């Protein structure tokens, strides 16, 4: 099977190996590293990770599907995750989600037709003092307002 993951992935894993007493412990780091390269985790990638670690692909999927950060479906280039937990809701996150749905013309969980934006609601991001908060790919955006969100989207469009 042709490899999908880059030498960079295998180098990173090699570096991590001595840090753990078992190879299976590399599974979460491997899934993170792979997703950084491929933006989501298709079956072929899960298989390649399983082969590297020496476990069945079903075990890889069993673990990957437990965690919300691993994308088992394709996501847009820009992945918006708006926190709607307690503090963010108190500070207007629900209106923010509605605003974003209208603006991008998609519902929560959907991706725009041009594959640029995916919108999700997120559980508590640990940014409650600067609520409402959102993750845009790996970055936090805090103390958000509808106008601020418009500006972020405008800059990405």
């Amino acid at each position, binding site marked *: 099977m042709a490899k999908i993951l880059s030498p960079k992935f295998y180098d990173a894993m090699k570096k991590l190996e001595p840090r753990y007493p078992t190879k299976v412990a590399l599974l979460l780091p491997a*899934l*993170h590293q792979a997703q950084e390269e491929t933006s989501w985790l298709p079956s072929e990638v899960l298989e390649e990770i399983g082969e590297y670690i020496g476990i069945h692909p079903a075990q890889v999927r069993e*673990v990957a599907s437990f965690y919300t*950060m691993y994308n088992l479906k394709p996501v847009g280039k820009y992945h918006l995750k708006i926190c709607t937990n*307690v503090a963010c809701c108190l*500070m207007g996150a629900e209106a923010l989600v509605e605003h974003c749905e209208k603006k991008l013309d998609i519902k929560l969980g959907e991706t725009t037709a041009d594959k640029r934006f995916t919108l999700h609601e997120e*559980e*508590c991001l640990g940014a409650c*003092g*600067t609520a409402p908060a959102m993750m845009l790919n790996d970055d936090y955006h805090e103390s958000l307002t509808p106008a601020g969100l418009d500006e972020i989207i405008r800059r990405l469009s």
Partner: protein
Amino acid sequence: MSETLYVQHLNEEARPLAYYLSKMDGYTALKKAFTMAPDDITAEVKKSNLRGRGGAGFPTGMKWGFIPKQSPKVKYLVCNADESEPGTFKDRDLMRYTPHLLIEGMVIGGFAIGSSIGYIYIRGEYTREAKLLQIAIDEAYEKGYLGKNILGSGFTFDLTVHRGAGAYICGEETGLLNSLEGKRGEPRVKPPFPAQSGAFGGPTIVNNVETLTNVPFIINKGGEWFAKLGKVEKSGGTRLISISGHVKKPGVYEIAAGAMTVRQLIYDVAGGILNDRKLKAVIPGGSSAPVLTADEIDVIYDIEPLAKVGTMMGSAALMVVSEDYCVVRLIERITKFYAHESCGQCTPCREGCKWMEDVLHRIEHGHGREEDLALLLDIADNINGKTLCALGDAAAGPVTSFVKKFKADFEAHIRGKRCPSA
């Protein structure tokens, strides 16, 4: 103002090693620790009345004392940096602004319990904080504060940042350990407790970030000094409190343990209620904590006083709710969170949380029935104390308290067939 250990350093300027060395007596506690016997370090931590800052409030020194002395197995020290309890954001500041304080605390902790391998299990969303920690760890290796023969002591300690991937349950220590081992983050049956059999089958101590960052202070200034910082019996040191919601000045604050009431924290520290609205409810210790009404806030903000009034300090996350947000909608949102985060192992939690969410949803949306309140209390009672880990209790306690304390709000929804504030 009483003495604070942290807040004056929680800013960008404090991050570099040079600042830590010059302004925070950086790594001097480690030097001192290496002149002490490991058991004496644990004894000092016991004397300090340091209690776990992650939520359970268990005495840290006692926990360290559970590590079997004669075990031939490899021992582990794991820092719980999952910070997933809604409302909590103090550990994020500690990691991004004072990463070396955590590293030093961990090396001392490792030395005390006889562990040469440490992991920082950090929630996956804290990508930036994980990178900043890694930079500090690399710096510490380079300067000889980590790695082999630290400061010429002969002691070795290796530290690795391990990122979670979005699962509240991984804040539970055995769920965390499974996740560290590359498994689903499902909590384990206890006993055995981690101190006997934790990470990779070895004796393991899991401590919260803030707990570990307290350790250098305790070693430098002594357990007795630390214990005296606390204003209530059994609680030493200061507490970092995350205040959020409807207050004028949300943020991370530090007070001597037990030095203030909930009212003082809201009105004197956080500037009072946003837009000067009326206070409706207070969630004192993260969303797992049973709610307090506006009449119940003259209580000292610490572990025992809050337990006495039927709630908990938890991770010291104080969430303030004004009359501007519907309490039924709020508890529906909280319950939706627990239903989403239940790992699914225990039937009462898996089925019960979802069921409570459904009932709360229909009440909030005008389809509630008269018997729904009794039903909610019954479901909560059938979850509470009947699950492997504390997630079930965390979901049940808030529902019970909201239904009992805000009964009139629920009844208004049911009788009026709509949310009065919608």
